[in-house]
């Protein structure tokens, strides 16, 4: 039964110490970046730099959104890690044998992981956002900025939650595809933090790449979902609309998971 498999997946996550370690990391990660950005974005703008176009002055809404989503990068990196570990630790500690013995239909196991991770991603997304909003609102209030310029802030928060959930699924896809947990973690974080931003930057100098490839990169798509103060030179690519960008992230998750699942079903488990 699908429900049983999903319950089993939730239990797997909440019966190791990982869950509260990550909860603390997400809460304080969100809070820390919100505080930093809350201070930076409320600095007095340098009139000369603004005039030269080197500094963009955000509207109060842009400032609030930027502060509240400042920890998003660290947040989605952590949900990515959760997604990888939900399957990776099964390969690492060979509990995947017991899992497939209690549920021999492997596709069902993978679907259960997807559903469980949507839930876990939402829970951890909320934890991260609570950290960001509480710390960010205090800083904005203290520095004389409006902590809640309008209901659009809620929209940005809801979209952040979507991003965090989608990255957990991307993590699952990576974890299924690369059964070596340590390798999967290093590769995923390395791509998300180093390779992909560099690729985005490099492609910006190539017209076709800038117009047709860059905004499909995962971190670019993520930024497109939660737009804040855009700060980019003339080479910056035009972002996708939020729903198209969300579909792009979902497509990454779906393709990685599908290929990984297809391989897992055929694989010999030892």
């Amino acid at each position, binding site marked *: *039964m699908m429900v*049983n*498999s999903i*319950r*089993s997946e939730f*239990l*797997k996550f909440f*019966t*190791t*110490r*990982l869950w509260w370690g990550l909860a603390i990391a997400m809460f304080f990660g969100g809070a820390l970046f919100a505080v930093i950005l809350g201070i930076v974005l409320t600095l007095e703008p340098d009139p000369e730099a603004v005039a030269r176009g080197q500094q963009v002055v955000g509207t109060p809404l842009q400032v609030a959104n930027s502060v509240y989503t400042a920890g998003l990068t660290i947040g989605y990196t952590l949900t990515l890690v959760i997604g990888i570990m939900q399957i990776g*630790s099964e*390969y*690492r*500690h*060979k*509990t995947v*044998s*017991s*899992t*497939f*013995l*209690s*549920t*021999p*239909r492997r596709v069902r196991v993978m679907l259960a992981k997807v559903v469980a991770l949507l839930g876990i991603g939402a829970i951890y997304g909320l934890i991260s956002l609570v950290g960001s909003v509480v710390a960010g609102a205090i800083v904005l209030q203290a520095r004389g900025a409006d902590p809640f310029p309008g209901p659009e802030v809620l929209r940005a928060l809801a979209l952040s939650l979507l991003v965090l959930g989608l990255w957990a699924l991307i993590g699952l896809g990576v974890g299924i595809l690369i*059964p*070596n947990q340590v*390798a999967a973690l290093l590769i995923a974080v390395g791509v998300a933090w180093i390779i992909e931003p560099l690729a985005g930057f490099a492609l910006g100098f190539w017209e076709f790449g800038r117009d047709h490839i860059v905004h499909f990169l995962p971190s670019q798509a993520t930024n497109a979902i939660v737009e804040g103060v855009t700060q980019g030179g003339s080479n910056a690519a035009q972002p996708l609309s939020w729903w198209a960008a969300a579909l792009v992230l979902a497509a990454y998750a779906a393709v990685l998971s599908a290929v990984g699942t297809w391989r897992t079903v*055929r694989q*010999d*488990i*030892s």
Partner: protein
Amino acid sequence: MTTAPAAQGATIEVRDLTKTFGSFTAVDQLTFTVEPGRITGFLGPNGAGKTTTLRMLLGLVHQTSGTATIDGRAYGDIDHPQSMVGSALEATNFHPGRSGRDHLRVLAAAGGLPVSRVDELLELTGIPAAARKRAGEYSMGMRQRLGLAAALLGDPRVLILDEPSNGLDPEGIRWLRGFLRHLSSQGKTILVSSHQLQEVEQTVDDVVIISNGRLVREGAVSDLRGAPTTFVRTSDPAQLAGALRVADVMSSPGSDGELVVETADLRLVGDVALRAGLPVWELRARKHDLEALFFELTEGTNRNLGDGSSAPPAPTERDAVTGQEGANA
């Protein structure tokens, strides 16, 4: 489930089962049957293909050809696998950061079994308190008991255990023996693998012996032992042999001056000796050396030891099964 009458066992049938890894044939046209209500030892030297066979039976490894069924169905086609088959494959299959009890809760949830069943099993395997500690701290014996508890969660009709006495102390082995006896008396089908016949000799009713992935012997342990004989030492073996022949009992001289008599009746041999006026210096039932027989059946052909000329570099069983996974550990 727990109040129902003891579950009847189910038959395990393996037919022409074959598994190749590249050019290496791990299991070769293997055919055998495991009957309910009996304990069957699945024996063979390390690397004979036991684990690969069990994993194919459990749907974890895909066979190249042939079939392996439990109660007529492949493992993947069984609706509630935990209530049909319980298995303990490796004592290390636990997340070190998760407690043993939580490990069982995860499995119970997957099968829709109540948590009360988890505590029942921990009680039954004698580890209720220890199972609340994280599994990384467990001794080998503790892991084996936890694995057994996991296998029994769904009150299965068939029990498949891979080297269950590995790492158990003599006390643990005795406990396991009694436990398996008890389960088989309920009519369950029990298959226990081991690389040592000696280890399971007193536990099992039947044996399936494989070597190099092929069946070399299948049958009851009693058949393996052959007819019982008696060992007697006296001052004049030839005279005693003659007296025994008169009593219709055949005998033959042993290697060390003793007489090997073809009977299990020690008293008869003693009486004959007394009537013949011969002193009895030693009189005992001779235990058939199963270990020697096992070695004979499987020796010389072990591909993993190799004689250096025939076999290509042969991977061990675990490597063969693990394939690329080995590099990830």
